[in-house]
């Protein structure tokens, strides 16, 4: 048997140095990858925003877009580099802040003259389309409802859907996770099949159903439809979260004097907070961006939601004024973006625990 020689200190150091440089290389590769894939995603949003604050009636100055992109791309690359090569947390933060400030300054210097808020006119003037087209009609009645009405409708639809989905999926998920009953397996399988089933194919039957039940052209009708379609997956996700909660703590709560319901609320529910947050956020965003069913089931202006509003705005003035369309779009995505920003800290902790039958 060959005697294995023990490496000396110099060799250990060489090994350590190699793994250090490998770690750094992997980190740089990862950041390069993230920057590359995030640019195509970020650019359209950035352009949308830029157009909304710079475009004037009649067209978009593409030079503005090029200039702003010429600032955005180096900014993102710069932040990526700082992330990769600055070790200290505080210094990383300062460096990133400096880059952002520099970028904002650069934007103001290069295209500052082009920036204006004129495209956000729709926020206070619901007659903007007629004003734009110069066809002030005799009637004072607006062709568009106020954007705030549509926004309010959207918020209401999304919030109501969130509440309903959370309520049903939490209770159903708990029951499916904890109780053995006839047909449980079949129920679980049908949940998945329902989720895989394309909802579009149901449009005509749903339309008829709404018509017959007198819920056509009501927000309640749409709410029930989109909630129902969202539920199977939400229930499945919640069941997975409940599966990951050990039985023991629930039994322990019972032995400690809690009733079944108290044990559920005081001990089990807090363990699935993250799951509820995820299901809630997704339900809200789904409801806020819903288009197909609102387009099919709602007609009256009073019932418009944001997706219909932006559709009609672009339908009426596209080709004339991209700026306003972009501005409406920016306004439309704000709540979703803000929701993500608030919740992302909790959402990234989420791992869909132990999904099993």
């Amino acid at each position, binding site marked *: 048997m060959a005697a294995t020689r023990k490496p000396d200190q110099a060799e250990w150091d060489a090994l350590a140095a190699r793994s250090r440089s490998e770690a750094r290389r992997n980190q740089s590769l990862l950041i390069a990858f993230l920057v590359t894939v995030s640019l195509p995603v970020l650019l359209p949003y950035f352009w949308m925003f830029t157009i909304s604050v710079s475009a004037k009636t009649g067209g978009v100055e593409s030079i503005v877009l090029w200039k702003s992109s010429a600032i955005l791309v180096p900014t993102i690359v710069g932040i990526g580099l700082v992330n990769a090569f600055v070790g200290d947390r505080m210094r990383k933060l300062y460096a990133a802040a400096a880059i952002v400030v520099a970028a904002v300054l650069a934007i103001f210097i290069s295209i500052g003259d082009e920036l204006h808020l004129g495209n956000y006119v729709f926020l206070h003037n619901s007659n903007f389309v007629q004003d734009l087209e110069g066809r002030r009609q005799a009637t004072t009645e607006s062709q568009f409802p106020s954007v705030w009405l549509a926004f309010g409708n959207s918020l209401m639809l999304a919030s109501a859907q969130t509440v309903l989905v959370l309520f049903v999926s939490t209770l159903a998920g708990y029951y499916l996770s904890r109780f053995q009953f006839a047909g449980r397996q079949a129920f679980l399988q049908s949940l998945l099949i329902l989720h895989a089933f394309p909802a579009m194919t149901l449009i005509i039957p749903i339309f008829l159903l709404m018509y017959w039940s007198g819920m056509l052209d009501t927000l309640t009708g749409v709410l029930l439809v989109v909630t129902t379609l969202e539920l199977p997956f939400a229930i499945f996700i919640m069941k997975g979260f409940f599966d990951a909660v050990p039985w023991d703590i629930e*039994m322990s709560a019972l032995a400690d004097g809690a*009733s079944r319901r108290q044990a559920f609320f005081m001990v089990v529910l807090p363990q699935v907070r993250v799951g509820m947050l995820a299901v809630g956020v997704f339900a809200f965003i789904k409801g806020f961006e819903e288009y197909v069913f609102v387009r099919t089931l709602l007609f009256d202006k009073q019932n418009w939601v944001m997706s219909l509003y932006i559709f009609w705005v672009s339908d009426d003035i596209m080709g004339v004024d991209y700026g306003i369309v972009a501005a409406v779009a920016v306004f439309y995505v704000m709540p979703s973006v803000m929701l993500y920003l608030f919740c992302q800290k909790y959402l990234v902790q989420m791992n869909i625990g132990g999904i099993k039958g």
Partner: protein
Amino acid sequence: MARIELSSVTKSWGDVVAVEPTDLVIDDGELVAILGPSGCGKSTTLFMLAGIYAPSGGELRFDGAVVNEVEARHRNVGIVFQSYALYPHMNVRRNIMFPLKFKGVPAAEARRRAEETARLVQVGELLDRTPAQMSGGQQQRVALARALVKEPQLLLLDEPLSNLDATLRLSMRSEIRRLQRQLGVTTILVTHDQVEATTMADRIVCMSKGRIEQVGSVDDLFLRPKSLFVASFIGAPPINLVDARAEGGRLALPHQAVGTKAGDGDVVIGIRPENVALGAPDREGCLAATVLQVEPMGRETLYVLDSALGRLHALEHGAQRRFRDGDRVGCELPLSAMLLFDRQSGLRIEEPGLAAG
């Protein structure tokens, strides 16, 4: 403080019988240990007493009253789960205070009692930590505090000391014992550590495969085991078991002829390692053996021997090693120390009437 009675209590899930019909009476204020190998139904028995599982049959009485259908929360039972089952989202203080919530104890009083109990089990400094921030042993003690704080009439401990280091285990053993005496609370301790059972319990219940094999004091179990299972389960290192045959009032052993009152049939002879006396080889009436291995155990020395009766263990007091590997020795197997079992039934033959000659 209750007297607990189980009469023909049984628990099964479909075909799986976890606990066979079991009779057991535990006196008020008594500490009984349930000892048995993994999967023998110890935890299931505890859960039935706690009201977490409903018995499949039989009657469970607390102070004479049948409690089969009384919910867990009304039984006033403190339980420490094998997995501790602390509530992950609560800190130690709130964990310990949890049971008091349901007893209508005012908040200030509950805090005081929680802190007092925490000090009792030496986790007074950890009150603001969450379970995830504690070692297994610390969690176990918090679970103990949570079970004690509500001054239960029955305390159930499912391997409460399994995760403690040797020193802490020793002190917790006497601490639990002291507390139990002081509070006078009827206690059932589940363990598979026989030293724990023998040092702490008034009586020991030895279980195997869902059945109670024997109930008794340490001496009963050690000196007068009812069955082969009890004899082999109790005692470390385990008892030596040798197959033999009784025929015409005689047992044929290779080194000695032995008369017996046992009827004809296959028997098993049991002799504890500490009763095997080693000496010079080739003595009259001694079994010739070779030392295979010497295992120093600190205060004692264990010899593994090869003999005409198969592999035998011998335990000698003292650290001095009188023999070494390969030495030839003579073993004395005193007839008075021999236990005789019926191989068929596994039961001990109570009057074997062994005599030389």
